[in-house]
């Protein structure tokens, strides 16, 4: 199959973080990010506190710093935007290393950078301790509409199938001497994309037939009835609770 390992962010493991059910983790993640976002941009000690909390969770999940940093690349567009803000924002000017920059822009940029980085780290910790399948299950338990759950599930299942088709089409193209050298050849790639769409559409129809043949009536049968003990909820929610504690403490001190 070859392409069967397309989820490199997930790390298998048996840590206490892995063991928490996905929907509990999702709620904790959301609450944590809300606390981070709600923190005023200049309360730097609070942000340091959040970072320490995340470091503790990551250590519990046995994630290496290098692993998290390498996955932070996804944040790059935000970083660029945050770095631009001091230069494009209006308001009072101030000197930074001899360059005149906008003061509100500088603070806003710094706040954006810190909040985004903390949120992304939290998401990376979540994603590397929760398999994609578990994530979808978690969303389902959180009452995400069935249609969206099914779309996500089929995406997981058919990602490899479709990328396999894409790969075969590329090999067939290149076997006949095609190399994408200049923009004019985008037309060829456009055709390939169109062909891939048609194939996927037809596969969708065949899958639907197969589902109907086994009694599908519009919703997937939900099989798992998980009862999560209160202690697990408490343990997971202690993460955003600690963040909230940091926020309140900082507020009392300033």
């Amino acid at each position, binding site marked *: 199959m070859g392409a069967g390992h397309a989820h490199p962010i997930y790390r298998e493991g048996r840590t206490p973080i892995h063991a928490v059910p996905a929907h509990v983790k999702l709620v904790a993640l959301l609450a944590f990010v809300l606390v981070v976002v709600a923190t005023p941009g200049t309360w730097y000690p609070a942000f340091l506190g959040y970072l320490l909390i995340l470091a503790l969770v990551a250590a519990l999940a046995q994630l290496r710093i290098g692993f998290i940093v390498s996955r932070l690349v996804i944040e790059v567009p935000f970083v660029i935007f945050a770095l631009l803000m001091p230069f494009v924002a209006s308001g009072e000017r101030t000197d930074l290393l001899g360059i005149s920059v906008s003061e509100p822009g500088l603070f806003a940029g710094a706040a954006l950078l810190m909040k985004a980085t903390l949120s992304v780290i939290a998401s990376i910790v979540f994603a590397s301790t929760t398999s994609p*399948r578990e994530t979808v299950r978690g969303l389902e338990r959180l009452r995400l509409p069935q249609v969206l759950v099914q779309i996500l599930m089929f995406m997981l299942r058919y990602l490899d*199938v479709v990328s396999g088709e894409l790969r075969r089409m590329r090999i067939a193209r290149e076997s006949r001497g095609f190399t994408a050298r200049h923009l004019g050849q985008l037309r060829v790639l456009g055709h390939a994309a169109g062909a891939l769409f048609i194939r996927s559409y037809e596969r969708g129809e065949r899958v639907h*037939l197969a589902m109907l*043949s086994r009694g599908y009536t519009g919703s997937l049968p939900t099989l798992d009835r998980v009862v999560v003990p209160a202690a697990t909820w408490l343990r997971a929610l202690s993460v955003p609770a600690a963040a909230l504690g940091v926020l309140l403490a900082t507020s009392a001190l300033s």
Partner: protein
Amino acid sequence: MSQAGPGSALAPSLVMTGVAYAYPDGHQALFGVDLRIQRGERVALLGPNGAGKTTLILHLNGILTAGAGTVHVGGLEVAKPNLAEIRRRVGVVFQDPDDQLFMPTVGEDVAFGPANLGLRGTALHARVEAALAAVGMADFVDRAPHHLSFGQRRRVAVATVLAMEPEILVLDEPSSNLDPASRRELAEILTTLPITLLMVTHDLPYAAQLSSRAVIIDEGTIVADRRTQDLMTDADTLAKHRLELPFGFDPLAARAATP
């Protein structure tokens, strides 16, 4: 492998009478098909590409509804109010296992059909285990379908319909894309299943190995219905309908070798 149901005790597994069908674009695919398959029979449905084989399959479980004629499965008519039970009774294994295996893991996929029938808990679990064991894939419950070989996926696809304990197992081109070992393994599994079998194929040696009766469909009608062995030695009939034995295959020798 069968359950009691309305009229299913002694009725034939499949009765088609005068089934005709035209696609919405006007192309007529079936012109009055009559076919009766007794319980426990193993029938090969042969025919060239475009003969109407797949269209016929889709009539068996009510995906397509005949313009004229009727289909009965185990005595129950294929009609809107019966569709849920009909789809339990007719287990269709489609040609591409990637179409059939749409759930994230093998176990969930095999559970899909019986769960739609309302099974839950230990009953469902037992069903899944039995079906996977029947195709020799019991150890693969938690695997993702795209991590399996093609032959393994086809076997799991068979398990997904076995889990519904069907009246009749319908296989669309069961040997396509299989390497020789997978092909033999699938044949061994299909031989052991105590079930009515309808295999749609143009792989004549496979039909000779697995079925005792063969039916040729061409241009939307049944043109031959005989013992598989007799049909295999009738080169004229085969040739008339674009069917050919592979080079070097001797049906008489094959019959002698069949236990």
